[in-house]
């Protein structure tokens, strides 16, 4: 894994360029093994199926249920993927190679988070059509705004989740600690995202969801910045 970093000479030491390199490394590992992505997609599909059987379709309409299904599934499948993010770095001490490379800590964080963002968005790209299909909800004109909400929410989920994944990977209770740390932070993402999704699915115009989208955007800005600044403090000094 560290070979492409070791052989790479930094011509311009830009944070974005370095971050892209780290993201590319993570995505290459994921693309070659596909282990996490396939299991998370199957997990998301199983979640959609189980929700279907817990659902009384005569009492609750599909449009009322779908936002809950989507956001519960994104939250938990996101956690599964995020846990892997720093888990792989701790196998065979790969993290040491990463930290020894001439890349700033902020760039490492942005790269890891960028790869996780691609991962979560890819899961969403399968789960949203799957919910539309299984719950017989034609998305039609709302597909694009829905994708926008999902993307805004994914940024926040990934920023917080990547930082906590880095922290949890160093502790004794990593697989338990990540959800404990992350889920309270996911609440101000899931509430606006699910509310905005519900507005769109009930046929309201996008304007009605703008207040929620502003909240999501504010969360993204504050927590991407805060998590990036906090990340260097979670490393050995």
């Amino acid at each position, binding site marked *: 894994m560290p070979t492409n970093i070791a052989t790479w000479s930094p011509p311009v030491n830009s944070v974005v360029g370095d971050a892209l390199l780290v993201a590319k490394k993570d995505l290459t590992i994921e693309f070659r093994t596909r282990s996490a992505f396939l299991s998370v997609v199957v997990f998301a599909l199983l979640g959609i199926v189980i929700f279907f059987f817990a659902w009384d379709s005569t009492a609750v309409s599909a449009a009322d249920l779908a936002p809950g299904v989507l956001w519960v599934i994104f939250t938990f499948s996101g956690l599964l993927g995020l846990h892997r993010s720093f888990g792989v770095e701790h196998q065979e001490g790969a993290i040491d190679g990463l930290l020894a490379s001439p890349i700033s800590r902020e760039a490492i964080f942005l790269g890891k988070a960028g790869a996780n963002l691609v991962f979560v968005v890819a899961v969403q790209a399968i789960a949203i059509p799957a919910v539309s299909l299984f719950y017989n909800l034609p998305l039609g004109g709302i597909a694009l705004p829905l994708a926008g909400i999902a993307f805004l929410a994914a940024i926040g989920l990934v920023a917080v989740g990547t930082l906590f994944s880095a922290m949890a990977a*160093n*502790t*004794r*209770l990593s697989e338990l*600690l990540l959800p*404990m740390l992350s889920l309270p*932070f996911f*609440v101000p993402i899931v509430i606006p995202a699910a509310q905005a999704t519900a507005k769109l699915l009930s046929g309201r115009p996008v304007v009605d969801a703008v207040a929620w989208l502003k909240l999501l955007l504010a969360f993204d800005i504050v927590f991407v910045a805060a998590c990036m600044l906090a990340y260097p*403090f979670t490393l050995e000094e």
Partner: protein
Amino acid sequence: MKPTPLSIVAALAVVVTYVRAIFFTPTEAIQGPAQKIFYVHAPAAWVAFLAFGLVGLASVLYLWLRDDRLDRIAEASAEVGLIFTTVVLITGPLWGRPIWGTYWTWDARLTLTLFLWFIFVAYMVLRGAIEDRDMRARYCAVLGILGALLVPFIHLSVYLFRTLHPKPILLKPDTPSLPPEMLTTVLLAFGAFTLLYAALLRARYRFAVERDSAHRPDSHHA
């Protein structure tokens, strides 16, 4: 641990407050005796948020100054804050059942307090999950700061979601809408709980100092 002057004063203040609250403060006309729990609930909520604020402040200062004392303050404040948050979450539903007709409702401030409790618990679990002292201090400081950033977002999102909680009675622009006898008792309760918090914080801090010096017999300064 020997009682300190602070802990004695705090205990006395709590006793005086509740003797006054139960025997010398008029019973509220509509809510009846159930309203008395307000003298525990509101000051406990104040201390819960105060404790949380101190964790955030000590966390920022720790990452800046790297002083172990700041880490111990954050640790002590989080643990004491968790107790007070638990008190808020127990007394609230006890009052809610007779007055609102339900133990729990997803009101903005209830939800916020519940999440405060979750963050405090996660903070304590994180502390217990790391052996290395410097790493534990740094990780907990990061969580303390992010938690402090999170509170306004949870507040805003659950407030937009729905709210049912009584509007602020004490801290509002015009004069407080409480009868003077009740107001005195409430202010006393806030003072007593703040003293109690300070006393518990100090005791918990002393405990952390002794534990750390016991773990490192080679160093004599705490």
